């Protein structure tokens, strides 16, 4: 403490932060520079050295194959995460109301349903993918948006409800009581008070859901069997062929696939952090 002045200390803090930032930027950096290399360069030059003659050939080649899966992913993931987060938040508020209720039957019900939801969240989806595929095949949902949406909704509403419950737990009880006394029904209280107060939580849950769904490889792998119509993680994986890998195209594909989660994180990340802080301290981060 005494050996360093405040300037030196601040400098050390910044330096350590900078080192971490660099470490975390390395994957993005390598994806971009190796995507800009030619097929020969990418295998003959070290992975951290930028290309002498950057070209967009690999990106162009990849884009022509990724445009549809990328669009598919956007169409499926964004609305589903919005809906899942919204329904999850509503469910979480319902649990909050049940848990503060003094009626023993309601408390029991709250605990039971909550346990089921936790179970649904922690159950590996691989375990139920076969019955799910059977159901979807019977309903003619394979290879459709509907099929992917159904599967994601099924798996991510419980996750959203569980996450949102943690944010709801710090809602001050007095404020909810005050709203009731002021003649506000549950729905009005939810929209006018609970949602604004848990915005960091809602955005954190949304980001979490978007990223989880965007990166989910297994579900689209099973539910889609037409290469071009699948979602982005499966399409990216298809560049790693069984007979050889085009590394420059793999890098380019990986970068294109991560743009949307990256953008979301860059623009909404501060809410995510605020949300994590709320969870961590149990304080009223929302207020």
């Amino acid at each position: 403490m005494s050996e360093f002045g405040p300037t030196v200390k601040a400098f050390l803090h910044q330096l350590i932060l900078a080192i971490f930032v660099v470490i975390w930027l390395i994957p993005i950096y390598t994806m971009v520079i190796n995507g800009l290399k030619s097929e020969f360069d990418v295998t003959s030059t070290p992975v951290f050295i930028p290309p002498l003659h950057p070209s967009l050939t690999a990106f162009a080649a990849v884009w022509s194959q990724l445009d549809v899966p990328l669009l598919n992913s956007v169409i499926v993931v964004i609305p589903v995460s919005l809906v899942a987060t919204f329904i999850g938040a509503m469910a979480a508020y319902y649990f909050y109301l049940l848990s503060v209720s003094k009626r023993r039957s309601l408390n029991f019900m709250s605990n039971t349903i909550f346990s089921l939801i936790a179970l649904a969240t922690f159950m590996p989806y691989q375990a139920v993918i076969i019955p799910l595929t059977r159901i979807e095949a019977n309903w003619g949902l394979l290879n459709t948006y509907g099929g992917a949406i159904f599967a994601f909704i099924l798996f991510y509403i419980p996750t959203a409800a569980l996450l949102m419950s943690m944010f709801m737990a710090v809602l001050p009880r007095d404020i909810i009581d005050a709203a009731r006394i002021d003649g506000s029904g549950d729905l009005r209280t939810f929209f006018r008070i609970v949602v604004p107060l848990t915005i960091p939580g809602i955005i954190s849950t949304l980001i979490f859901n978007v990223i989880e769904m965007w990166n989910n490889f297994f579900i689209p792998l099973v539910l889609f069997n037409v290469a071009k119509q699948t979602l982005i993680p499966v399409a990216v994986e298809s560049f790693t062929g069984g007979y050889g890998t085009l590394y420059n195209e793999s890098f380019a594909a990986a970068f294109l696939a991560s743009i949307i989660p990256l953008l979301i994180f860059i623009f909404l990340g501060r809410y995510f952090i605020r949300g994590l802080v709320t969870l961590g301290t149990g304080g009223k981060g929302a207020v």
Partner: protein
Amino acid sequence: MVVTVKLSKVTKTFKKGKRNVEVLKGVDLVVERGACMGVLGPSGTGKTTLMRIIAGLEVPSSGEVYFDDKLVSTSNRIIVPPENRNIGMVFQSWALYPNMKAYDNIAFAVKNKGEETRKKIEEIAELLDILHALDRYPRELSGGQQQRVALARALAKDPSILVLDEPFSNLDARIRDSARALVKKVQKEFGVTALVVSHDPADIFSVADVAGVLLDGIFAQVGSPLELYDSPVSASVARLVGEINELDGVVEGGKLRVLRGVVERRDCQDGNVKVGIRPEDLRVSETEVQGMISLGKVRVKVSSYTGSSFRLVVSPLEEEKVELYVNSDRPMPINSEAVLLAKPEKIKVFKNN
């Protein structure tokens, strides 16, 4: 419509682990229309539970709650839910909606949002001196302003009853008195039935017409604040309502013996008793004073200045362990000896338990 609130034999039992804790043990209470009732009690005696039962936020384990003649809660059942009881409530924490400006906080409780409502809210805000604070968020307001916004929110909807839970405990001592005066003023102006819950007797004295002392889940005494102060039914009530010196005494043949003094007390039965004397009913003097009786000689241990008067701690010469608080209009040298005098009619006698 302002209502009369009536509670009949209300009990409330909470389950704490395996144990049942009876917080309220058959409370009977009537708050007349337009009156302001104060409920005084130490923490953990069920004050807040009582208030939450009246508000409909808590279900009574047994007993009934009426608003006028209408049954609103009965055993294990809420008949009229809180949102339909038209209650104005000021929470200890104010419980303002942090995401809304003061105006919207107040307007949230009002059903119709027309021009008339705006005018009314502004009138109330003017009365409470928060007109300039209406377009600010709660976090931008001082504690006193927040409390007044909470009060405005409770009043704006023309409540049937106004419930205030420790409304002054979060305020600076400096502004507490003016806040009390303001609450009293608006309560009378609006003619609304009010219930104030507090552990601070000063709140009750300044606001309530009638007060009840809640001890161990039951009303130990109900009466005007003055009655509670001057004729408390027990030592515990006396202690809660204000500072009091407690001494041991003996009654024999209509005479009360306390310290070295003897007072005529025809209303007491013979035996050992507890004697209570408030500091302002005692005096330390070198000479006899008309209308006061001597309790013997004392030694001054502490002499301190509290605002406008002096506060002495004295001990009888022969009983160093007994310490009494005495209000005095002048300071006394430490270790000086003097005579302790008391107003005989103000000496309170309680059963020894």
